[in-house]
């Protein structure tokens, strides 16, 4: 496939953008940051497009991580890429942050299976595996039970250490990279609809105590 794809990620502690053509990386930027994604993203996209020597009209597809992540980070990437989708009338593919991390971990280690485990605090993690476990929030114990079933696996994410898995290969991948977002989007089916944020937790909002 010679599709040209622009992908971005802003879900966790990094901001990245990449342009790929037929799986080959034409341009790539990645910065580690806990905050500042909203300021960094647009110039970074402009830079990778210039680096790839492409105009937006030359793209075939757009890709973005939908979550899980920081709620704000998820929306920074989605708002920007959904804006591009409307402006360019190109398909936008959504990929989970954990899928992009797990795919990167598997490729880096050569393991048959990988899991991305993000420490979601409050005794919970966000987990997804390349073996069919879709992104979900769960207790650390439940996550440990899932990964224990594998005889060997690669681990990514801030929650990897919580898995206490002797036979795992722990990578230092803590956030998605847009290169892998593009690769996963490249093999995803086309979609008409805009991807929506994947929130694994409800908003922190309480109904008033005295609801009338």
């Amino acid at each position, binding site marked *: 496939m010679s599709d040209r794809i622009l992908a971005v990620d802003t879900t966790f502690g990094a901001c990245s953008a990449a342009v790929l053509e037929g799986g080959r990386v034409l341009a790539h930027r990645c910065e580690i940051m806990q905050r500042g994604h909203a300021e960094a993203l*647009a110039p970074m996209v402009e830079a990778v497009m210039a680096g790839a020597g492409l105009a937006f009209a030359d793209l075939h597809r757009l890709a973005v991580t939908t979550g899980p992540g920081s709620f704000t980070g998820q929306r920074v990437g989605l708002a920007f890429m959904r804006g*591009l989708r409307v402006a*360019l009338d190109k398909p936008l593919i959504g990929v989970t942050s954990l899928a992009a991390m797990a795919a990167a971990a598997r490729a880096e280690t050569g393991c048959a299976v990988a899991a991305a485990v993000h420490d979601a605090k409050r005794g919970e993690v966000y987990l997804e595996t390349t073996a069919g476990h879709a992104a979900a929030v769960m207790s650390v114990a439940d996550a440990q039970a899932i990964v224990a079933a594998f005889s060997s696996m690669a681990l990514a994410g801030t929650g990897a250490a919580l898995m206490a898995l002797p036979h795992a290969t722990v990578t230092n991948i803590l956030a998605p990279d847009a290169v892998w977002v593009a690769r996963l989007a490249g093999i995803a089916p086309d979609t008409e609809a805009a991807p929506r944020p994947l929130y694994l937790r409800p*908003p922190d*909002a309480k109904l008033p105590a005295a609801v009338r």
Partner: protein
Amino acid sequence: MRTLTVLGLETSCDETAAAVVRGFPPGPGEILSDVVFSQLEEHRPFGGVVPEIAARAHVELIDGIVARALDEAKLTLAQIDAVAATAGPGLIGGVMVGLLTGKALAVAAGKPLVAVNHLEGHGFSARLATGVAFPYLLLLVSGGHCQLLGVEGPGRFRLYGTTIDDAAGEAFDKTAKLLNLPYPGGPRIEILAREGNPARYALPRPMRGREGADFSFSGLKTAVRQLIQNNAVETVDVAASFQAAVIDILIDRSAAAMAMFRRDFPETAEPAFVVGGGVAANGAIRAALADLAGQEGFGFAVPPVKLCTDNAAMIAWAGIENAALGRFDPLDAPARARWPLSHEMP
């Protein structure tokens, strides 16, 4: 005649909005489309706007609303001169959504970006409506703000007075809550006040007669709470008495600011007194302020109600005001929760 066509985006509170406006300063401008989606129903169960719920709704809605605004204006992005998006002040999660969408549209279409101060949007909406000349005196009254400003142009404001505690609109909403009126209660106060006796209950007028033009509303709110808690009150009379107190405060402080404006701009023969913000939708307040302007020799300008509440047409117009002066913003422009209007050094 030179004109600019600007697409505006607004997501700073609980309205998701996009509009296309054409024109050139001093206005008036032509509103080619004006799409507003109110998230009222999403927030009603909570009795107020919940920031995370608002941000979640904005990101699902804004792209479709932008497409509709362009559609209704019968224009493509290529035919727009600039993209203007609210960059603050407001609920930061929502502001980011609109600003990032705006950045994407700008970068994709190769158009300049204007990161608009939402307050500037309110402050210039009278120029969009009627083409008022600078400088003018602005009373900005909304749920989040209560300020008196001398307005000389984009980024050029003199602050004459501001609230030291609550905003006027906040006082309306809190009083409505105390009266058990359904959310959002502010606009209902005006309706009830028509049936009530404004002299029935004695309520304080904080800061009245004080030096300067600052406001305070928290004492008034406390007095209303004590009145309601300690007495069997007539709702319509509380509404009327409360609204009368707010009007007295606004009149007194506006009159003080008019004197300050006269001192600063003695050469402006018949200056305009402009009212903007959601509270300017209140008919009784508009009428009282119009009377004051007449007495003090000021022209009076208040935008139509639709332009007083949050909307994207005023953001697009603020974009035109800035674009006309070549004031654009870089793609790394930040979203700001707080962003006071200030007088920039030349």
